[in-house]
């Protein structure tokens, strides 16, 4: 049976982007639909009635939501080019860092981006503590997954894509060379991988969008 794989995403969302990367790394053919999140399609609402959010993967008519759940589904369904180690302990460790990225790193960096003054300083301090743990994980490794890109790299890949955008907008360096040499090396290495690079949303468009988001948050 011909596989039909559709991805509902948006042009800028890092959660959709990580799924694009996973599909491409596995060489899976798919169609993507960029949603206008201010005017969600009936398909999105039908396929993700609980959250009505992207990304949603639709495989032969069945929909899967939540990016980390989609990751595991892709890994279970297409087992070539595994993104997770086979050994259960190493798999659990990879999943731990994926979760750490989403639960801790992302909110702390987002906070640092949308706040100002003392609140921003505190958020940056917290972000730095979280990033130090990632720096430690990377020591001596090319990728979080080792020699090859793994799930943790895809889950944390938004750092390479969005932190430079955030730093440009707030006029401050969060991931600096002195404290985070391994993390910066990884961001560079990761960004250069063809499959990753070719899916990068345009930098200028990201600047405009996130500047507007920060302005809206500061106005509240």
């Amino acid at each position, binding site marked *: 049976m011909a596989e039909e794989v559709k991805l509902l995403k948006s042009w800028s969302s890092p959660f959709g982007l990580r799924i694009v990367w996973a599909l491409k790394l596995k060489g899976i053919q798919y169609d993507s639909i960029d949603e206008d999140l201010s005017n969600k399609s009936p398909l999105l609402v039908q396929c993700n009635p*609980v959250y009505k959010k992207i990304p949603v993967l639709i*495989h032969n008519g*069945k929909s*899967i*939501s*939540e990016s*980390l*759940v*989609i990751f*595991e*589904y892709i890994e*279970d*369904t297409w087992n070539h080019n595994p993104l997770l180690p086979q050994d*259960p*302990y190493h*798999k*659990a460790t990879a*999943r*731990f860092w994926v*979760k*750490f990225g989403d639960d801790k790193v992302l909110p702390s960096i987002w906070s640092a981006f949308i706040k100002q003054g003392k609140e921003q300083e505190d958020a940056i301090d917290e972000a730095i503590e979280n990033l130090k*743990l990632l720096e430690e994980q990377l020591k001596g490794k090319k990728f979080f997954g080792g020699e090859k890109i793994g799930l943790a790299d895809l889950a944390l890949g938004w750092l390479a894509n969005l932190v430079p955008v955030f730093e440009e907008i707030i006029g401050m360096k969060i991931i600096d060379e002195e404290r985070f040499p391994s993390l910066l090396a990884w961001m560079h290495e990761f960004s250069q991988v063809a499959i990753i690079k070719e899916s990068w949303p345009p930098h200028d468009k990201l600047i405009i969008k996130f500047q507007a988001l920060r302005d809206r948050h500061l106005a509240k």
Partner: protein
Amino acid sequence: MAEELILLDFWPSMFGIRVRIALAEKGLKYEYRDEDLSNKSPLLLQMNPVHKKIPVLVHNGKSVCESTIIVEYIDEVWHDKSPLLPSDPYQRSQARFWVDFIDKKLYDAGRRTWRTTGEEQETAKKEIIEILKVLEEQLGDKPFFGGESLGIVDVSLIGYSCWFYAYETLGNFSIGAECPKIIGWAERCSNKESFSKTLPDSKKVFGFVQELRKKSGLE
């Protein structure tokens, strides 16, 4: 090699309960260590340096942290008995989606039910009922979320059932009145030995919550 399993846990934790139940379902022997969270053991701090939280499963000296990750780990290592995840990738994704839904929604709403008053508490109560109603829809007519037998969603949700009495008493509402199917499901679960031997008593949990409220100046 003899398996060495240690579980660092805290008796009322709905997250710890998940791991205890998974271990019981697999018929595994382990050493249970109840942590004093105001005075965490050196082993806990060493085994979970990032979060310093329970539960932590130490298997032959190596630690696995985060309850959902631990449950999947247990299911993978001891895959020959009582599988907690289905084998079909789509069914697996649906089970994981609902575990994630429970994780995202229920703890926070539950906590606000006993930690807040007035309008905030009313909102929390409504949210709990909404969340449980969504889960009831998922359960449908099945005896368990996993179908005929227990699955990862059952294991992830049941720890909350011993907190229902506390939520209801402190929030002055009845979960059973609005979500009878969930109560029915919880009762079916408690008939299973792995659950009945593992779940803390609801009144004991309530007593614990009362202590917490006193400490926070809520009593």
